[in-house]
């Protein structure tokens, strides 16, 4: 499965069903063509799909249309292998990174000539950079087992060969070079001992790779660590001897999208397009569980628990990124006070408030919050990355703020950091002392920023979620889950009345009670039971005894849909008014204005702070809701 991560670029959103259609019709409307191509390139694409995007780019150029705001970049490619397949993949992948890439290919095998001749194809083209795609088969590697002197000579010759190519390109073409490390071949002639034995493939390549990395210091050239890529996916997967023999393909084409992605990442990084700020969701991302419902004792974080360790790894990784200059911020749907509690009081938390530049915990949509965070830090949205376990939040941010990078995450939190880091959002091509201090520079003790108005068209997004809501009275099948929700929900819970399963059964069977169990599914799957309602007959009125909802579906007009459903039944039974009550607890500030927002009229306030609300059934008009309704 992890191998698929790197084949399918699984941190990128999956391409939509109508991807081919979108490519075919991309040029039909001309507005923001560059951005639309960037979006098409932004999905996880295999070689065939990259080829499609490449064709769109070629058509755009042929028609004389602009690819703005993509940034033009010219890349020369010289290789000891077949590089014809590279240009389409690189050009399409570059669009994903906001780059309008033009590839200039050298003739096959003409590496040194291309570099040294001022009049060569590459040098004449005056590219911005040249990729020196040389693998171990393109260097004079001599097998001299046990011969230390010959080993040193071979390493020296290989490094000199590459240095000569780089110098030639600098002097004759003015380009900076992208220099590859060597992926070692799978085969070993001596076994494990090979690493200890001078003059073998393993020890030679090791020495050359270290020499290459060292030779970059003080130059403008950039390292592409192909050896690391190949080892990450597995050397036996990376090398495909059949296709090398057949067509001189230097590695398995399965990894062409990954290889192109890594090249384009460093080009984008060189152009200052890496992300500078990581915005973290809290519940089920930074810790396991929901702080508002589970409480400080209930959330899972820390050693000794598999899930707790997975989330600890997220914190460790965030702190590591901070050490190298990435600013950290939080965006969470929570009450501020409650969300800060683990940072202040939980002994196993590694992340503390002093590590965070901005701390946004409120009940607004995350697109609005991310915009506020970017503004506060004076960073562009294209410098932001957002990590959230919830696919609905991820997609909302992607749709409303396409410039923000939002990596996909798998179901298993143990793999969160693997996906985040595989996404390579924070690619660095250099490191300065300043980088190490940058996060501190932005620091202001987890400040919170005032929100501007909501960004983007939320309603259109809600419609695109294709939500299906189902309403059903309490029944035997649902009772266990209903009881669970009644006893667990703290945040979106108007009265926080707890009932045993036996009491729920009585409610279910009582003629004086109207009950609802509510389920919701959407394009991302089934959310299960997300809301529970109990109304009790009080003369001509209904008293809303219990109204609770899962915070996971907050901001999706589910409350409105539930109210419509209650009104529908109330009307048919001749009920005069709905009587709501909000009983404040430490955890349910979120719903203090619940009834006011739904149009209830304010009534009395008790001595203990409980507020009462009224809604006239007959005069309340019906409201449309962005979801399909089923009644069971």
């Amino acid at each position, binding site marked *: 499965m992890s191998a698929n991560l790197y084949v399918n670029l699984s941190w990128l959103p999956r391409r939509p069903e109508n991807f081919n259609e979108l490519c075919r019709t991309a040029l039909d409307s001309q507005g923001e063509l560059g951005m639309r191509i960037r979006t098409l390139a932004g999905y996880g694409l295999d*070689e*065939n799909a990259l080829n499609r995007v490449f064709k769109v780019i070629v058509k755009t150029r042929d028609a004389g249309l602009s690819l703005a705001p993509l940034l033009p970049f010219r890349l020369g490619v010289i290789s000891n292998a077949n590089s014809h*397949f590279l240009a389409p993949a690189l050009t399409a992948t570059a669009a994903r990174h906001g780059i309008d890439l033009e590839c200039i290919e050298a003739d096959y095998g003409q590496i040194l000539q291309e570099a040294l001749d001022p009049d060569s194809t590459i040098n004449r083209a005056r590219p911005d950079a040249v990729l020196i795609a040389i693998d171990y088969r393109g260097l004079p590697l001599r097998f001299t087992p046990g011969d230390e002197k010959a080993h040193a000579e071979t390493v020296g010759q290989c490094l000199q060969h590459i240095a000569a190519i780089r110098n030639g390109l600098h002097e004759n073409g003015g380009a900076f070079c992208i220099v590859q490390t060597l992926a070692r071949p799978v085969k070993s002639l001596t076994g494990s001992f090979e690493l200890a034995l001078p003059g073998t493939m393993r020890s030679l390549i090791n020495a050359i790779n270290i020499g290459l990395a060292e030779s970059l210091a003080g130059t403008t050239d950039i390292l592409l660590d192909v050896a690391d890529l190949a080892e990450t996916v597995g050397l036996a997967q990376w090398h495909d001897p059949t296709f090398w023999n*057949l067509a001189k*393909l230097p590695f398995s*084409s399965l990894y062409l999208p990954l290889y192109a992605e890594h090249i384009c990442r460093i080009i984008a990084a060189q152009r200052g397009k890496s992300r500078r700020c990581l915005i973290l969701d809290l519940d089920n991302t930074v810790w396991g569980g929901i702080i508002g419902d589970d409480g400080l004792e209930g959330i899972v974080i820390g050693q000794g628990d598999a899930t707790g360790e997975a989330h600890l790894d997220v914190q460790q990784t965030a702190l590591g990124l901070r050490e190298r200059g990435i600013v950290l911020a939080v965006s969470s749907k929570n009450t501020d006070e409650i969300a800060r509690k683990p940072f202040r009081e939980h002994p196993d938390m590694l992340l503390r408030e002093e590590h965070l530049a901005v701390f946004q915990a409120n009940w607004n949509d995350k697109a609005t919050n991310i915009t506020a965070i970017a503004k506060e830090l004076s960073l562009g949205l294209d410098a932001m990355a957002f990590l959230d376990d919830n696919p609905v939040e991820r997609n909302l941010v992607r749709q409303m703020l396409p410039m923000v990078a939002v990596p996909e995450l798998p179901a298993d939190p143990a793999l969160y950091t693997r996906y985040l880091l595989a996404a390579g959002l924070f690619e660095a091509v250099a490191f300065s002392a300043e980088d190490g201090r940058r996060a501190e520079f932005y620091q202001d003790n987890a400040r919170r920023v005032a929100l501007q108005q909501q960004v983007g068209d939320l309603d259109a997004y809600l419609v695109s979620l294709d939500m299906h809501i189902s309403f059903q009275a309490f029944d035997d099948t649902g009772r266990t889950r209903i009881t669970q929700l009644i006893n667990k929900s703290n945040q979106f819970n108007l009265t926080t009345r707890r009932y045993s399963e036996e009491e729920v059964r009585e409610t279910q069977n009582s003629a004086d009670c109207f009950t609802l169990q509510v389920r919701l599914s959407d394009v991302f799957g089934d959310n299960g039971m997300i809301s529970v309602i109990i109304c009790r007959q009080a003369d001509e009125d209904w008293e809303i005894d219990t109204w609770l909802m899962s915070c996971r579906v907050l901001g999706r007009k589910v409350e409105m849909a539930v109210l419509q459903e209650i009104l529908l039944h109330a009307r048919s039974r001749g009920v005069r008014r709905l009587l709501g009550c909000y009983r404040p607890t430490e955890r349910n500030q979120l719903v203090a204005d619940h009834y006011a927002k739904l149009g209830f009229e304010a009534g009395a306030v008790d001595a203990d702070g409980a507020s009462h609300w009224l809604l006239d059934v007959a005069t309340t008009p019906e409201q449309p809701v962005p979801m399909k309704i089923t009644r069971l």
Partner: protein
Amino acid sequence: MSVSQIYESLTEIFQTVFDDDSLAATPELTAGDIDEWDSLSNLRLMLTVEKHFNIKFSAAEIGKLKNVGELAALIEAKL
């Protein structure tokens, strides 16, 4: 997998690789029939077939193929 299922998959693969929904994989189809079918796209085709059926071809097997009928027969022999 039946032969007709192989052809069904191949039709889908040809449409994907050559970006042409009107293509249908038939036994007589050869590289001469499709403009875009050159040595480079042939590699993509072979790779896409390998990936789809989870099989591997040798260089000799690929070199010998004359038409889609032979490709389908080779796939069938490997499944």
